[in-house]
């Protein structure tokens, strides 16, 4: 599911996959108002992200998990307490 990643000195990053979320540059206020809201019943935005799992550095793509239930959790940071 997740491919193993080579480890270098650069800190790898991922990001959204697929069509760009259109960002109108008219004014920052408008951008905030028009920011796409996540809605239940809609497709989860696809992304790739580097990570760590069971002794390996990996790359994960959300859409590779189609066919399975996925719990996607965000949290403030490693070593935070709760």
């Amino acid at each position, binding site marked *: 599911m997740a491919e193993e990643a080579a480890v270098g000195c650069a*800190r790898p990053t*991922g*990001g959204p996959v697929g069509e760009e979320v259109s960002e109108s540059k008219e004014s920052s206020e408008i951008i905030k108002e028009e920011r796409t809201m996540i809605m239940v019943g809609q497709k989860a935005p696809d992304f790739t992200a580097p990570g*760590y799992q069971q002794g390996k550095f990996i790359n*994960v793509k959300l859409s590779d998990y*189609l066919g399975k*239930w996925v719990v*996607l959790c*965000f949290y403030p940071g490693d070593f*935070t307490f709760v």
Partner: protein
Amino acid sequence: MSIDSMFVHKMWNDDELAKMVEGGIPYPMLSDAGGKVGKIYGVFDETAGVEARGRFLIDPDGVIQGFEVLTPPVGRNVNETIRQIQAFQLIRKTGGAEATPSGWRPGKKTLKPGIDLVGKVWQEWKTSMAFD
């Protein structure tokens, strides 16, 4: 997923979490540098530069069925997350023929939405069932 690098994830898993969970965290610990993914999911706090406690349930078709977002000091309820997945799996299995009323958990009564149920939920479901 957090803004921490995969290197920090490794240290946190190996040095602390592996002492809580035998064998360490089994699932991928993902890195979201700059909050790029968190932004599109609406959980990245620009001011603090970190992500809120967001939890998204994504079905086998890639559709978001539910989410919950908490500020950092309050932890999640894993049992409730599992209960919701069980409910969504039942809905999916029955093709929407059944619905899970408030307080439902596996083994408890479901409702069968349809014309005969209109105005009759009070006969099928009692408020005490939300709490038992």
